[in-house]
């Protein structure tokens, strides 16, 4: 080989060697810089755990125990992964061999329905924020698994109850749907209930095979999440849930022992003008995809029908509950599409002999925008629930008499 070629190859080797050394030096320095950073993030995320992702089981179980012992629970924020809590509550019912007479399967919009509306009955409100028909089927499955269902089920219907992928594009946070193509992703605690519930009502299981794995990956991913890190820093003195005798607290979130809770910590501070503006803005975004057929996914509607049929065949009393929407939002939304969800429920109610109480339409109960009836565009305050329950008190009493009396006579002793 000629000398000049040899020297060229030598130069190339030398250069590659230098590049390799540079690369190693760079990687070493990056590691020194980034590894401590990542470790810090992981350690803070794990130990502060503001979203209760890593201590989930213990915290939820403790909350469920406190509730069933008859204590209200105080925490800094609305606990995440609410479905897990409901699953723990239902399992605790099983452990106590006691099932409530009246339950609410609903969402944050029905969270103010409380024991006071059903004096003398054993009551629990399973309000899952953002809950949908899948959550209701899961709750049904969990109760079925106990072997006993409540005598009367109040099912809260919301505009997002039947929707799948479209919901994600509008305001609604259909809870934990990472992939709109998968119809629904419910929380791990409710998974077994959903499977059992779907089997019981003979409905098809939704496409979401890798749900548990994705949920776990997401949870581990949160260890490295900078958003979670920021949340951990803000909440490093986070109060763990503790029992309280208060009904509400301006500084914290109170989950009452009957499962009900207030969406607004301080209702006196509600400014109707600001809420009206919020409602208007919301309606502008959601118009055309909130009340009509676009949010009624056929499969989900069918699943709901099967659930209701199963309940009715089991001799369970069912009530459909519709919480009103802010009048400004409703008026704007109704201009773009008819209120088909409500029409459907009235039809189904007639077929299955199920009363419908409440309405999306706030004008039915004379709720105007000038008074603080709403916390935001669609969360009514307790006063609204009182009005609705007052109007339908007679119907509810009749239903209690029909469905709870025979059950009570045969129910085992115990309970809260």
């Amino acid at each position, binding site marked *: 080989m000629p000398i000049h070629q040899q020297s060229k190859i030598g130069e190339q080797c030398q*250069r590659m060697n230098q*590049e390799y050394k*540079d*690369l190693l*030096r*760079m990687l070493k*320095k*990056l590691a020194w*810089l*980034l590894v*401590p*950073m990542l470790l*810090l*993030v992981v350690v803070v995320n794990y130990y502060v755990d503001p979203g209760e992702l890593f201590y989930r089981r213990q915290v939820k179980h403790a909350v469920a125990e406190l509730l069933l012992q008859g204590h209200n629970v105080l925490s800094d924020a609305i606990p995440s992964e609410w479905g897990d809590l409901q699953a723990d509550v239902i399992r605790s019912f099983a452990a106590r061999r006691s099932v409530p007479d009246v339950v609410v399967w609903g969402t944050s919009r029905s969270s103010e329905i409380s024991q006071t509306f059903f004096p003398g009955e054993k009551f629990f409100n399973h309000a899952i924020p953002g809950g949908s028909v899948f959550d209701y089927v899961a709750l049904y499955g969990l109760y079925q698994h106990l072997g006993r269902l409540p005598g009367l089920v109040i099912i809260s219907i919301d505009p997002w109850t039947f929707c799948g992928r479209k919901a994600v594009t509008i305001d609604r946070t259909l809870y934990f749907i990472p992939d709109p193509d998968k119809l629904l992703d419910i929380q791990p605690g409710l998974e077994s209930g959903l499977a059992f519930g779907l089997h019981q009502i003979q409905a098809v299981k939704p496409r979401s095979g890798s749900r548990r794995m994705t949920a776990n990956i997401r949870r581990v991913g949160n260890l490295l999440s*900078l*958003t979670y*890190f*920021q949340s951990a*820093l803000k909440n490093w003195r986070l109060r763990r849930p503790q029992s309280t005798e208060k009904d509400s607290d301006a500084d914290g979130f109170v989950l009452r022992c009957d499962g009900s809770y207030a969406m607004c910590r301080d209702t006196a501070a509600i400014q109707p003008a600001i809420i009206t*503006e919020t409602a208007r803005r919301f309606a502008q975004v959601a118009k055309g995809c909130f009340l009509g057929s676009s949010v009624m996914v056929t499969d989900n509607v069918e699943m709901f029908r099967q659930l209701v049929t199963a309940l009715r065949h089991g001799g369970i009393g069912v009530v459909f509950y519709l919480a009103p929407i802010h009048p400004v939002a409703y008026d704007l939304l109704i201009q773009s599409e008819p209120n088909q969800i409500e029409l459907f429920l009235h039809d189904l109610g007639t077929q299955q002999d199920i009363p419908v109480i409440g309405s999306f339409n706030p004008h039915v109960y004379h709720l105007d925008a000038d008074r603080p009836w709403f916390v935001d565009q669609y969360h009514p305050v307790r006063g609204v629930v009182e009005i609705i329950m007052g109007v339908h008190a007679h119907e509810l009493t009749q239903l209690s008499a029909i469905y709870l009396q025979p059950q009570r006579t045969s129910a085992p002793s115990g309970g809260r």
Partner: protein
Amino acid sequence: MLFNSLAFLIFFPAVTGLYFLLPHPFRWLLLLLASCAFYMAFIPVYIFILFMTILIDYFAGIQIEKAQGRGRQFWLVLSIISTCAVLFVFKYCDFFIINVNGAARVLHWNYSMKLMHIILPIGLSFHTFQSLSYVIEVYWGKQKAEHNFGIYALYVMFYPQLVAGPIERPQHLLHQFYEQHVFEYQRVADGLKLMTWGMFKKVVIADRLAIFVNHVYNRPGDFQGSTLLLATVFFAFQIYCDFSGYSDIALGSAQVMGFKLMQNFNRPYFAKSIAEFWRRWHISLSTWFKDYVYIPLGGNRVGYSRHAANLFITFLISGLWHGANWTYVIWGALHGGYIVCGLTTRAWRERLALYCGWARWPALHKTVQIGCTFALVCLSWIFFRANSLPDALFICRRIFIVLHSVPGDWLAVVFDRSFGLPRRELALAYALIAVLLGIQWIQRRTHIRDVLPKFPQPLRWAMYFTLLLSIACLGVFGQNQFIYFQF
């Protein structure tokens, strides 16, 4: 794909690693494929529009080089018209239709066209201008036509500068794709530092200020003049940090791979005049307009009135380039007006400065000049940011009411409490702006990159760690788009 996304955090090291692993002849192909993937992360189908523009200008470039006499002109005009037609259809069509419909209404004609509601391909204006600069340079004979289609496509699509510039010239960028870049420690380290600094500006400063600015500008009627003024100042820093942050990440990521892109910002808010501001702000665009619009119009080698008209027209077009809305046109017109006024009053201002004896206090004189320039720029930013023209006029009116008030009320501007957002956040925003200005002040003579090695290593490492930690603790990670992506 956004630079401030998790996807880019995976994409960038993967592409860079592969780039250095591959033999030199295949590297351009890797970059082209990576650029396609980067672009397709937004709206995949729009890659065809981009390829159409690339194809037209690629052939036009070759034909211009081959042709003689009028043939060259023909291919140039064909290329410019077809490239601009794409821009018009996607960006200006609805604006045009709205105005035609408006004019028809005013003239009581029963005429109305339907809006097309086309989603604007991301960064369309940027790669259109980069394509145009290529054909024009080939026409002028300053650049040979590129015969390798892949390399030409990469020149337009090179991912660091694909969606928001810097708008490169073929003489500066094309030849770099043929050069073999080795892994050089210092260059890579400098590139990574630049990227980190850019990320800090974007996610910590710009996105944090955006919370205030959006809150106020989306409901200007709810706020008093002092709040609107403060929000406007915040927007000035938001847009600077947003865009210069993007540019730093673009320059840094290109630098890591061995490419040198042109500098886009040079401490613009320290400019002493509007003309100087434009030599420091979005440099790649202002030089583009200077080279391809202002000079062909006659530049300053014409009479005064024609010169002023050339300047004004150039800025008007620049305004329209930014967006299909009258607010942008007025923003451009304002800057054109400033420049023309500055030109007209230059001698008068110099005499006034002499008369006032400013020469004795040069630092004070400079500060006043910088302050005045910043105020004028802020006034124009109102039109740039406002959601509509009536909003912009309303904001101006409210701000001027505050400016006419007694000096005691001026304190209300600084200690404003009416944002309706936590005061801690407001204090943090002030602190971040102070940090930015402090660093820029240090950079007035030499780049911080050259200053850093002079510090002892532990101090340097503490600074790097602080920067990373502040990104982690204070960054806003909501996948906020860069403002200039929409152009």
